[in-house]
């Protein structure tokens, strides 16, 4: 392995924020790379969230977060078009069930949205029932936030990163940062893979772990706390066509009912302060709270069968706004941290904003040959690959091989799942996983014994038996 590489910019963290920044940086004449410690990108907060492209109508006015959410509203249409991201502008309905809810909407929600540049449309009970016949008929009124929509968060993250790779960026996966020294020449980063990278500038987009990256440089100016959100996925949409929002309280926006861009509905999230940054467990109490929360708004869906439940962790920073600034240890380390729950929504603007900071700092020059549009690799299948592998979702061998042949092939089974939708159906991959292991071996030469499900040391194939125990019937 070439153990020493010199770079202009190194991005730490392959979540939606790191990948959006990486893509922006490839607009300039610069050598840029991203490092992600998991076997594939999009393995943290970016994969487990409500997948909403949020207008920022309720962001604290005057914050950087509110400003970037507002900027993102203008940037999304071209990002969605260039990267071919599955997106639905569903709109969101905030429903009032009590006279107090109505007062909160009128006195707090609408004025705050105005300050954020978002106009909300008040609706009567009758208008809501006509718009959304699936909601609790006892609703008293509410508002429509027309600009809210739902997106494929995996696609978004992967497409940012893939576009960056096609524009010349390098991506290291399965390697974490173990040392970080800020020197005269730049920042020297050592990795768990034995690599030494020297970058003129390092961007810390390590999400939940960004405070620990800062610590490596001797910077303890902020901390990140995990806030858990549990979700319940329902395959039947029960007619739900808008995002349904309760009137929020101080801690969270409450339990939402959110259409999923590729079908079905997501219920959640909870908002629980937890101790561990690895606590991704769903709980009896959490799942019950979700069902009870949605029962008041969309009664029919409260009892619906669920195909999957999961938990994600928001990265909550110790400062009241996004932490986008130079490290206290030196200007060559730039933090992009504390993004909490708006990283996906603000990602185009965070990328643009950070890209601009870096351009000025390093006096970068724009390239003439930046390709904004991503070729549609996932649609490119070869003849004789049309047979179905994932039975539940009717995903073909060709679709899986196209993902394995792409410029940024998946480094884990979940990575392939996120690129294709295979293994997301009723059997959760149990039927087709062996065939998928075969495809990884055939296309990428991956040994099943070393192929992880998600993180390191998560291989579904644990043991090679001394002799074959049996043959196919």
């Amino acid at each position, binding site marked *: 392995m070439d153990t020493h590489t010199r770079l202009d910019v190194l991005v730490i963290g392959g979540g939606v924020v790191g990948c959006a920044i990486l893509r922006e940086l490839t607009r300039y004449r610069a050598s840029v790379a991203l490092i992600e410690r998991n076997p594939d990108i999009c393995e943290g907060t970016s994969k487990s969230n409500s997948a909403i492209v949020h207008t920022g109508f309720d962001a604290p006015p005057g914050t950087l977060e509110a400003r970037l959410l507002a900027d993102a509203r203008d940037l999304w249409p071209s990002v969605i078009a260039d990267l071919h991201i599955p997106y639905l502008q569903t709109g969101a309905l905030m429903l009032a069930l009590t006279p107090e809810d109505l007062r909160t909407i009128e006195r707090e929600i609408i004025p705050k949205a105005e300050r954020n540049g978002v106009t909300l449309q008040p609706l009567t009970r009758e208008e809501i029932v006509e718009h959304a016949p699936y909601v609790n008929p006892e609703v008293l009124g509410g508002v429509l936030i027309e600009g809210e929509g739902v997106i494929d968060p995996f696609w978004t993250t992967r497409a940012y990163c893939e576009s960056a790779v096609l524009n010349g960026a390098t991506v290291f996966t399965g390697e974490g940062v173990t040392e970080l020294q800020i020197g005269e020449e730049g920042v020297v980063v050592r990795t768990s893979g034995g690599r030494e990278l020297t970058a003129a500038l390092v961007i810390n987009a390590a999400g939940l772990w960004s405070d620990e990256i800062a610590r490596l440089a001797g910077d303890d100016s902020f901390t990140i706390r995990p806030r858990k959100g549990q979700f319940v996925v329902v395959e039947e949409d029960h007619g739900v066509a808008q995002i349904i929002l309760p009137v929020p309280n101080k801690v969270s926006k409450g339990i939402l009912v959110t259409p999923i861009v590729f079908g079905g509905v997501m219920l959640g999230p909870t908002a629980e302060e937890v101790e561990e940054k690895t606590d991704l467990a*769903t709980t009896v109490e959490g799942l019950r709270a979700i069902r009870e929360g949605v029962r008041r708004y969309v009664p029919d869906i409260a009892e619906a069968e669920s195909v*999957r439940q999961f938990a994600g962790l928001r990265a909550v920073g110790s400062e009241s706004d996004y932490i986008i600034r130079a490290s206290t240890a030196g200007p060559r380390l730039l933090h992009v941290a504390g993004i909490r729950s708006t990283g996906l929504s603000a990602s185009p603007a965070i990328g643009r904003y950070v890209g601009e900071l870096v351009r000025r700092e390093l006096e970068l020059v724009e390239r003439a040959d930046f390709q904004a549009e991503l070729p549609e690799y996932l649609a490119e299948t070869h003849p004789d690959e*049309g047979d179905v592998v994932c039975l*539940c979702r009717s995903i073909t*061998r060709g679709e899986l091989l196209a993902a394995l042949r792409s410029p940024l092939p998946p480094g884990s089974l979940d990575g392939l799942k996120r690129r294709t939708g295979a293994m997301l159906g009723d059997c959760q991959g149990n039927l087709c996983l062996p065939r998928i292991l075969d495809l990884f071996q055939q296309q990428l030469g991956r040994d099943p014994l070393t192929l992880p499900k998600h993180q390191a040391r998560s291989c579904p194939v644990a043991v090679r*038996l001394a002799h074959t125990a049996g043959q196919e019937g």
Partner: protein
Amino acid sequence: MSTIDFSHVYRLAIVGAGLSALSALQAGLAGEDTLLLDYQDGPGGFLRHALTAPGLEDLAAFVRAAALPDRLTTCFRSTAVGLLPAFVEGEPHTLMVRQSSGTVEVRATQVLLACGGLELTRESAQIPGPRPAGVITPVFAHQLLNRGYAPGRRIVVYGQARYVQATAYRLAQAGLSVTLVSPPGEPVLALPAALSSALTILPPARLVALAGFPRLEEVSFERAGERVTLAADTLVYAAGLRANTHWLKGSGLALSAQGALEVNARYQTSVHGIYAIGTAVAPSLDHEQSLTMGKEVALLLSGGAL
């Protein structure tokens, strides 16, 4: 393996070559002009992967002996992904079928849906906990064993059926440590003597939680209000089946809330000329029921309906 004649209207198209379809064929269902389609590489349904498991010898023998009639057009690795019933009674129905060459349309006057089931997962029962590697269902375990691999070393199998016992036994025979726990409230199956010595069998208990990440570490059960936690790197969740009917949503065929195909006493679905048998109608791990339905539908359809 034969090829589909797209210009032709088949008299009967059978979707699925599992036990119920094989039973129907053996009972004389296949007339001329019949097409058999299946997702897999050969007959036997998902049980196909488990045929070498100890305790399923009779079913294995049945599948091996079920010679497919020569006059039958048989297409494996051919998956029905959609069904458009005829608008007018007597007109042919259309199946959308994916094969290696692409998506094709198959037309048939009558359709027999024997498309089986999918194994229920831990997620379908909303067992709380993280989502580590090592939480699987039997069909994955059997396919790994067939390839010369095992899913883990310390395995808990949770379920209660002959197929579940056979899965546990086969894993134990591969040299792995296996504990079998059945859910409470179900009739306890007699255990073959050889089985009870090869693995650890615990009294019935309800699975309540998982722990460990990125790999499974513990499985917790509740029995009479008491919690029992077992160390395990693998959980084979084998609590049952659901009908494999996701592909029929939008077809207009009546499905139960759980997705099972609704049929009358003559195995006819809500659409004239479309019949259904087996796990797709009655999702359970009981193979006898599939065999019986196959025989009955063969008699009904051969006795005049066809």
